[in-house]
């Protein structure tokens, strides 16, 4: 069913009894051309672009639980392309352009809202870094605007300008950045992929990879063996565990990142704001809750929940930035498991085993990358070569030294 104003009117007049399930909950067949492990945003986007752009229709997405219940449902929904490095920037800008046309492409309301992303700076050194980043963005055709203190004040008068320990000196604004509705992105891709013949198989946990003559030829699952010419892994958070089934060690550690939402209040914060003197980022959902997050807890974790000292630190950073939120009550907090790579950048590449492909290491920037990640992974699977904007995301860059370390932290995943 194609969604339109007409279908909405028709259903409104007939008691909304004609709506069909948006996508098919398929049972697995015995063999496919491509199996995508992981029914999150990245896996579903991969399946969609494989079918839509590259004409590969024999595709199954295997998900151990329900689609979109991992990190796709646990992020802070921010989309942006304000990256510095030439290996990263064109990829994220490609993603941003896909976001801009996503709803028309999928015929689904993903609530993409380009409300702007403002990174604040609080020192001369930080200003220099943001000027450099802004220039790098503009050289790559990305919009970037440097705001001085007064311009920030006009835009966000409620920030702490008077007595701050680290006074706001200005900010770097990407007007085209913003937020999207994370669940709708998952559902939209699932619906569009399913419509093109992709099988979305839920409650199907991959327990092992099937090897024949040194190559991967399928997977064993809780619903039986499924064969495929190519097996694509898009399970960020658990990449190391799936790779271990193939006997591989990855340059990745799994860490927990917490996020928070407050009770709903009237429209208050018009854009996404990041605090430069701590680590805090906040936006307001359309429902009115403030959605915010901060740093990783700092140690390996598969727990999907975090610890209290980080709750205190994130809330303290929020108070330092905008003291008015002090009386606001927290509604929920949760933790997501991040594939933290050794340089803070992702991997979209063939694994050293024939027939196995990796989409991993998204750190905590995976949500904004969803469309481009799916597109580039589909390109790799269909064409056997990297998409031109994802050429730097090689697995062997750690051996060759071509790292993509935006922050310059070195191989310490808990600091990226």
């Amino acid at each position, binding site marked *: 069913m194609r969604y339109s104003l007409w279908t909405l009117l028709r259903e409104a007049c007939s008691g909304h009894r004609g709506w069909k399930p948006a996508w098919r909950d398929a049972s697995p067949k015995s063999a496919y051309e491509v199996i995508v492990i992981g029914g999150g945003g990245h896996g579903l986007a991969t399946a969609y672009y494989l079918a839509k752009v590259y004409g590969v229709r024999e595709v199954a997405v295997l998900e151990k639980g329900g689609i979109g219940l991992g990190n796709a449902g646990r992020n802070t929904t921010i989309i942006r392309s304000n990256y510095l490095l030439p290996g990263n920037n064109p990829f994220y800008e490609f993603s941003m352009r896909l976001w801009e046309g996503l709803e028309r492409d999928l015929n689904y309301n993903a609530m993409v809202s380009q409300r702007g992303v403002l990174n604040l700076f609080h020192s001369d050194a930080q200003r220099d870094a943001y000027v450099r980043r802004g220039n790098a963005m503009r050289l790559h055709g990305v919009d970037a605007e440097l705001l001085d203190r007064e311009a920030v004040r006009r835009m966000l008068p409620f920030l702490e300008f008077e007595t701050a320990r680290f006074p706001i000196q200005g900010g770097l604004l990407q007007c085209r950045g913003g937020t999207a509705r994370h669940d709708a992105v998952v559902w939209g891709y699932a619906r569009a992929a399913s419509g093109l013949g992709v099988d979305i198989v839920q409650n199907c946990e991959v327990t092992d990879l099937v090897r024949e003559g040194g190559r991967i030829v399928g997977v064993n699952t809780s619903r039986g063996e499924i064969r495929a010419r190519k097996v694509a892994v898009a399970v960020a958070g658990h990449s*190391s565990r799936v790779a271990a089934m193939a006997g591989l*060690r*990855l340059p990745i*550690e799994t860490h927990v990142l917490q996020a928070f939402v407050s009770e709903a209040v009237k429209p208050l914060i018009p854009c996404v704001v990041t605090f430069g003197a701590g680590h805090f980022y906040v936006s307001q959902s359309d429902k009115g809750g403030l959605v915010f997050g901060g740093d990783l807890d700092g140690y390996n974790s*598969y*727990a999907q929940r975090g610890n209290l000292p980080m709750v205190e630190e994130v809330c303290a950073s929020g108070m330092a930035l905008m003291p008015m939120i002090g009386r606001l009550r927290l509604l929920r907090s949760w933790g997501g498991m991040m594939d933290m790579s050794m340089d803070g950048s992702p991997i979209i590449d063939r694994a050293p085993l024939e027939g196995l492909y990796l989409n991993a290491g998204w750190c905590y920037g995976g949500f904004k990358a969803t469309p481009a990640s799916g597109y580039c992974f589909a390109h790799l699977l269909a064409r056997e070569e990297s998409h031109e904007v994802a050429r730097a995301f090689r697995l062997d860059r750690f051996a060759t030294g071509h790292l993509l370390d935006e922050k310059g932290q070195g191989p*310490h*995943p808990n600091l990226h």
Partner: protein
Amino acid sequence: MRIACPFCGERDLSEFTCLGDAGGPRPAPEGEGAVARFLEAVYLRDNPAGVHRELWYHASGCGSWLRVTRDTRTHEVLAVRFAREARGT
């Protein structure tokens, strides 16, 4: 999470900083395959969902480096030793 420092006793998580995977000893820089050995040691990780050995620094305490054995699924701390004494075990 609380960690029982062998010198200070049981203390709150916020006193400690985590360096990460305790790994093995630094590989030998000479000889065949040194690059591959360093790639393994510096960049590659087991990253288990379960028992994990890691190095922690008791920054707001005695300043000791500790080797903590911990379950990454439950945050349960199974053993804590001074890193110097735990080396090679």
